[in-house]
């Protein structure tokens, strides 16, 4: 690895961490799309800032653009408050308009602005190591690393200082208000941090991929845990992993670094989405299938409990009367047999003592709807695990 290569990877990792932390809170607060809105609408702020400072890495420009981001949030909320349109429509109206203004500003001043629209969407990580911070002639490393490093440091400090407040206001705004922690301050604090992060990361990964770096690690982590601290660590881990792997994929394909970082993130999310042990797609499908069978089993047992007549308890009767298909009937019968709940003699099904007990317990649960009735059954059955 050459020196610039190492530097690019360090920058990518820092950007990923800086995005993942606010991303977790945005996802938990159901405001993921605000990051999309901010990342688009900072463009006019960025362009105006550039006219003033002529330096893409100037702190003033970052501040200006970040203020545009916060203004977007305020504007969206103002439109929502009028009640003229639904809240998602408000987001969808504000950011394309602001983004259009930005694009037009760039197009009209194409000669003066060293910014092109592709760079806005994609950023250019590959050039980041060449713009170096020089103080009295001493090379202190790439500028964007310094900028993102400072932003990351601020974010981490704020999260550690206000972790409790953030947690409470995220999960229970009412409680946090009654405890004297203003949800509004937390809200705008988070919005400001997100805004600054988006602007800082913008240069490196572009407007839309910033959204991916914020949302995807957090969403993947959310599928794996419901502990806030673990979720933060997991999100950071996913972010850094995708950033590093993405860099090498881009190196191999000779394509955009940020594009391949997002693609790796997408694959990571897809993997987690499919295979997450509790909340993944396969786990959910399996659980739903299992629950369906168990509901059938319960219906069947209740049916047996209600009828002593032989013709109601004949094996074929299941198909004829309850209208189950053959496979389903067989699955249910097998399950009941395996659990020693029924015995079959001469194709006539009858409940065993265990089956009878179980049915009565279940019936009691259905009637009273009290959880403690089913505590001992929970280990055997998905159905009662909620």
């Amino acid at each position, binding site marked *: 690895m050459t020196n610039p290569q190492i530097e690019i990877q360090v920058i990518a990792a820092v950007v990923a961490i800086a995005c993942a932390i606010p991303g977790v809170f945005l*996802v938990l607060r*159901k*405001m*993921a*799309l605000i*990051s*999309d809105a901010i990342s*688009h609408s900072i463009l006019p702020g960025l362009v105006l800032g550039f006219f003033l400072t002529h330096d893409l890495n100037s702190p003033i420009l970052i501040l200006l653009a970040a203020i545009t981001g916060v203004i977007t949030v305020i504007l969206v909320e103002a*439109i929502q408050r*009028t009640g*003229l*349109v*639904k809240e*998602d*429509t408000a*987001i*969808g*109206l504000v950011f*394309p*308009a602001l*983004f*259009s*203004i930005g*694009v*037009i500003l760039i*197009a*009209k001043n*194409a000669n003066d602005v060293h910014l092109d*629209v*592709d760079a806005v*969407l*994609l950023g250019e990580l590959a050039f980041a190591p060449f713009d170096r911070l020089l103080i009295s002639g001493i090379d202190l490393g790439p500028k964007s690393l310094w900028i993102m490093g400072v932003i990351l440091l601020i974010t981490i400090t704020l999260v550690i200082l206000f972790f409790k407040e953030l947690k409470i206001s995220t999960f229970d705004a009412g409680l946090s208000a009654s405890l004297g922690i203003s949800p509004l301050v937390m809200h705008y604090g988070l919005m400001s941090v997100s805004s600054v992060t988006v602007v800082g990361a913008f240069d490196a990964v572009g407007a*839309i*991929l910033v*959204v*991916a770096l*914020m*949302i*995807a690690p957090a*969403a993947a982590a*959310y*599928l794996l845990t419901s502990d806030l601290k673990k979720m933060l660590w997991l999100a950071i881990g996913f972010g850094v992993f995708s950033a590093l792997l993405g860099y090498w994929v*881009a190196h191999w*394909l*000779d*394509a*955009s670094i*940020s*594009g*391949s970082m*997002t*693609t790796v*993130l*997408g694959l990571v*999310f897809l993997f987690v*989405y499919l295979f997450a042990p509790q*909340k*993944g*797609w396969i786990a*959910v499908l399996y659980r739903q299938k299992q629950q369906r069978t168990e509901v059938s089993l319960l219906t069947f047992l209740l049916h047996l409990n209600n009828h002593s007549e032989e013709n109601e308890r004949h094996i074929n009767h299941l198909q004829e009367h309850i209208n189950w298909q053959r496979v389903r009937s067989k699955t249910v019968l097998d399950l009941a047999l395996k659990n020693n709940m029924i015995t079959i003699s001469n194709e006539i099904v009858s409940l065993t003592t265990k089956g009878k007990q179980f049915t009565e317990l279940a019936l009691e649960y259905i009637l009273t709807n009290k959880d403690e009735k089913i505590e001992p059954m929970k280990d055997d059955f998905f159905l009662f695990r909620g």
Partner: protein
Amino acid sequence: MSLFDYFDQVFSDYTLRTITLGTAVLGAACGMLGSFAVLRKQSLLGDAISHAALPGIALAFLITGTKDTNLLLMGALISGLIGTFWIRGIIKKTHLKTDTALGLILSLFFGFGMLLLTFIQKQPNANQAGLDKYLFGQAATLVESDVTLMIFVTLMCALVLLLFWKEFKILLFDADFTKTLGFNTRFIDILITFFIVLAIVLGLQTVGVVLMSALLLAPAAAARQWTNRLSSMILLAALFGAFSGVFGTAISASQNNLSTGPVIVLVAAVFVLISFVFSPGRGLLFRELRFRQNRRDLQLKKTLQLMHSIAKTHDDISHPHAIRILNNFQGFTKRSLQKMEEKQWITLQQHHWSLTEKGYFAAENMFNETTHDESTN
């Protein structure tokens, strides 16, 4: 070329005519289908779908190697649909919320598309230039066959809309009721989503991936302000969309260096702004006016009540009282006194007022009257 020249040439010049017709038809189709997206609270679905279409375009180019618009749009349609169904999957199967699902698909698909686009650009042999027009759209590249396709699809949308009008409408406003009536809600749902995706894909060439959602939303959001009827809303939205298309094209054609997409979006945004402020029923301006009117009425009635309570204690209700004594309480302005005189509730003599018979009666019956007013309004 100035705006004037544009309108001068729009009927004679082939290119201008094609482009204008194309953007107008596109705007109309988007307005029509966007109404459903807005009312179904799926406004941002359009944003996600349009971004999700990008890898489809790039893949279609990579596989076939041609730049035939129809093929590329086919790819966009397929990847847009995949994105849509993945979003549904995420929302239905996991505890992730709609916003997260939309943001995920939007950014992940777009990132993948950008990876493919940059990969294509580095290929030595390909005639790849021109794929990036799908990012911001270039109405100038529209040719007659594109416009024919747009018109065809728009007419088809309109036809299906008319055929399934009742089903769409009922699903929109009460999904559960629709289900109990025995309609196949899943089918209707998929049908309408499919057409929304189709409209988005058609617009990619003109408005581009990034801004397409605005063209879908803005005309519908503007139209919503003027009416409470679905049919009029759809017609209005189509009209707004078409006008945004035409004006946007006109402005961008009359200036150098202006892509059509952002201009169309800005024109549509102006429509929204005007509708928000000036629509008579819901608009902010008239709402504020009504609000003030109500406040003034209330103040007037408050003063009248005060006068009534003073006059009640006298044998002669028209006994004059000094205006000054009203000052000790709240709720009197010069204007409200004049207004009360206009209504013949009181008579004013220099520094005195006296309640009239009519005013006394009005104060007595104020609460009956207000309830009566409200029921007739």
